[in-house]
């Protein structure tokens, strides 16, 4: 790259300004996250007094232990990993295939399908009819309930359709001339070239799968418990104990006597870290797909 060679190791004023501004933004984005991390590593009783900002006061791994030691945790963790991996990979291919077809204006029924898609973004049957539908399809408490409905997400489809429409026509023409059919074009040419958007959608889907718990609550139940739901329950329980402690009955008195402390804060913080850290580690792996557009130029000839 001519430009890079020229500017190697030389930072223009713009660059300096850019870097400084980015650093400030990064700090503002990072500080609360760091704060949560510190709280999760701090002794819960000590955290109660407040004032934990940049560093922990009484380091402990007890918060994490408390969660990891629960027997349901490991199973829930693997369930989450399973649905994230399977769900994200299947849905990104499915979405890409669907979007690719939809991006061609000459496809029979393209307008109809597009309209069908857009309508689903704005109208919904509601909680109960959706639930009944899932049940009637035999997906209640079935692992596939995490996969099948998630295969398409209208928002993602629109993003991909836009992207595919932006690809130059020459890309496909050369293959068509050589007699390739649409499938070959899609899998061998279009997909590899679209890695940035594919990686993006894969990431979005993965994050969506990893974070979702409402579907677990409605359709999964304890059999298909995911980590997110497990954590939500844990927090609800802690909250409930705290509420119980201010009621007027003997249980409240005995809870207090036994020193149950409102440590909802610590549990929430730890739960957030356990949720966030694995998925954050995924991004660097995907970053390599965000490479500059390749080989497009080679078709110009």
């Amino acid at each position, binding site marked *: 790259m001519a430009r890079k060679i020229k500017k190697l190791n030389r930072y223009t004023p713009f660059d300096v300004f850019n870097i400084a501004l980015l650093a400030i933004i990064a700090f503002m984005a990072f500080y609360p996250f760091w704060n949560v991390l510190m709280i999760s590593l701090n002794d819960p*009783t*000590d955290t*109660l*007094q*407040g*004032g934990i900002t940049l560093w922990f006061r009484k380091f402990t791994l007890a918060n994490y232990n408390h969660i990891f030691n629960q027997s349901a945790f490991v199973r829930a963790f693997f369930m989450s990993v399973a649905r994230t991996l399977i769900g994200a990979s299947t849905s990104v291919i499915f979405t890409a295939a669907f979007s690719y077809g939809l991006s061609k204006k000459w496809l029979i029924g393209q*307008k*109809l399908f597009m*309209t*069908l898609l857009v309508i689903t973004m704005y109208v919904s*049957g509601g*909680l*109960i*009819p959706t*639930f*009944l*539908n899932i*049940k*009637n399809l035999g997906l209640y408490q079935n692992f596939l309930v995490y996969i099948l409905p998630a295969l398409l997400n209208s928002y993602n489809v629109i993003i991909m359709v836009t992207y595919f429409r932006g690809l130059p026509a020459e890309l496909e023409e050369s293959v068509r001339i050589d007699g390739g059919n649409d499938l070959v074009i899609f899998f061998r040419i279009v997909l590899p070239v679209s890695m940035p958007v594919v990686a993006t959608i894969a990431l979005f889907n993965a994050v969506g799968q990893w974070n979702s718990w409402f579907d*677990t*609550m*409605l359709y*999964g*139940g*304890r059999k298909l*418990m995911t980590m997110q*739901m497990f954590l*939500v*329950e844990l927090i*609800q*329980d*802690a909250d*409930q*104990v*705290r509420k*119980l*402690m*201010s*009621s*007027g*009955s*003997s*249980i*409240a*008195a*005995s*809870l*207090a*006597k*036994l*020193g*149950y*402390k*409102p440590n*909802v*804060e610590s549990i929430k913080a730890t739960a957030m870290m356990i949720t966030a850290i694995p998925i954050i580690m995924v991004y660097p792996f995907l970053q390599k797909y965000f490479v500059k557009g390749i080989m497009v130029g080679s078709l110009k000839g």
Partner: protein
Amino acid sequence: MKKALAILLAVLMLLAMFAGCSSDKKAETKTETKTEEKKEEKKEETVEYDWEYQMDTSPFEFDVWWPSVWSWAKAGLDSGWDDSPVYQYITEKTGGKMNVEIPLGDEGELAGTMIAAGTYPDVCVFGSFTSPYIVQMKDANLIYSWTELINEHAPKMQTLIPDSMMASHADENGELWYYPGFAYHETWAEEAEAMGAHPAGGAHGTNVIFCRKDTLEAFGKDDISDIDTFTEYLYFCRDNYPDVDPVRLFASNPRNGGEAIFTHLKATFGCHLSDTYPQADGSIKYYMYDPAYIDYLSWLNKLYKDGVISSNQLTDDQTALDTKTYSAGYGAINSATYTAYNTLETTLKESFGADTDKLYVAVGPINGNNGIKWQTYKLRSTGGQSSVITKNCDIPERVIRFFEFIFTDEGQMTIQGGIEGEHWTRNADGTISHDEAKASLANSDLEGFVTKYKLCGNWSPWCNTSYWEGLLGACLTPPGRDLDESEKRLQPYTIDLWADGFCEITACIEGGSDLDVIRTKVNEACMNAAMKMIASANEAEFNKILADCITEIEGLGVAQIEEAYTAEYKSCCESLGITPGASVK
């Protein structure tokens, strides 16, 4: 082309809708009455039974849906029925075995879908008897009434249900559609005491004012019992302790929350303890019309203008409150004796050293001006978690008789105390002595206790509270300082609100009904107005906000709510044989 497209689209949608619609058919078969089949009752005229459940003790199982289980009781229920001597005793007696399903998550979303799909099991437990889902199930004819089952299969059981419960919960035809557990009835405190507990007159330890020891000493008093001195003390804190908030207010809602300062001060300012504004003529008006409440808001407004309360305090959430409390950041708090002298004190000692004087000591109660004497009320409640028996149950006669056993004295002692002889014994004077191992576990690890013995929390929708308070209270080590303070600062001032006819009249509005929605909106308007009044800059603004609020709630229909409350109050008075409005001065 466009037209064809549109038509095609419409047809597709209709087709899809029909396809989906057909699957929503309600299982009409389930609504057939199965009760009538079992008319051919046992020919038990020959043997005389004390209770109907004894007639047939063959084994059976039934399923319970219960999302709102108390968190530590979950462990006891999750592990199933077979590993507990207490459960086995119950099975021996009745033949019955309970399978509890604790679904994940919030009852609200789960209940609606469960009902619509028809997947509700034999028994469902809801978090409150005001749950709109109970009404929906009843209206859709999906549940048996307890009364019907009792009359048909276990008539003797009716004697186990207190009249007050029937009065509060039966519908206009005298039928009980749900059973509310944890109803604190009129004599619970006396009955608990008879078993050896110390209910402190029925008021427990809540609603006591605590002041920080060092600031109180610096102020020069060792107790505070009137509002003017209390106010002085708050100003004193403001002036001399800038990093302390003089008084802990509330988290988000000025009126509610056990530890909100209003819970103690409402009586100080003369607001009625029923949270309504009763009139001498027997009618009930809404609390926003009460001049005593407005006085209270005025008082807070003055504190606000003088910087004793900061605006941040008005928006603090529970976490902020906890943080400040556990770092001794308040000059005065309203708390429960058992919290202040245990959890709080221990934490503060850990943080500041064992001989710190940043601890909290009880004061009060705080009496008002113009001769207003402070009062509190005996703990009473019409009930909490409530259960219904659904028509998906094939054996309602066995289930109702199972609960008959549970409601008997023997049943209650079993589910809350354990097995007689093994876990507890009854002394000559009627008090209960508990097995050493059990008592020591209860006093060191409550969760372990419930898990091992499968008592109390596992049964709470069917707990009679005198047994609960009596047995649990007697099992735990005798309280010390916290009981002394309750007896000194609460017991002498306790009145029985219910005896005056105020039996939780605010609970008369059906959950999910139009009136319930109106009330939500009215409460919201009042809460917003109250907060703004506290933060208002001058009297004119204060009065305007109040006037606007009154106009708004009248427009929303507060009169309808008042009507409902009045009717409920009158019927409570009737069943007690007193005149409405007589207790109002």
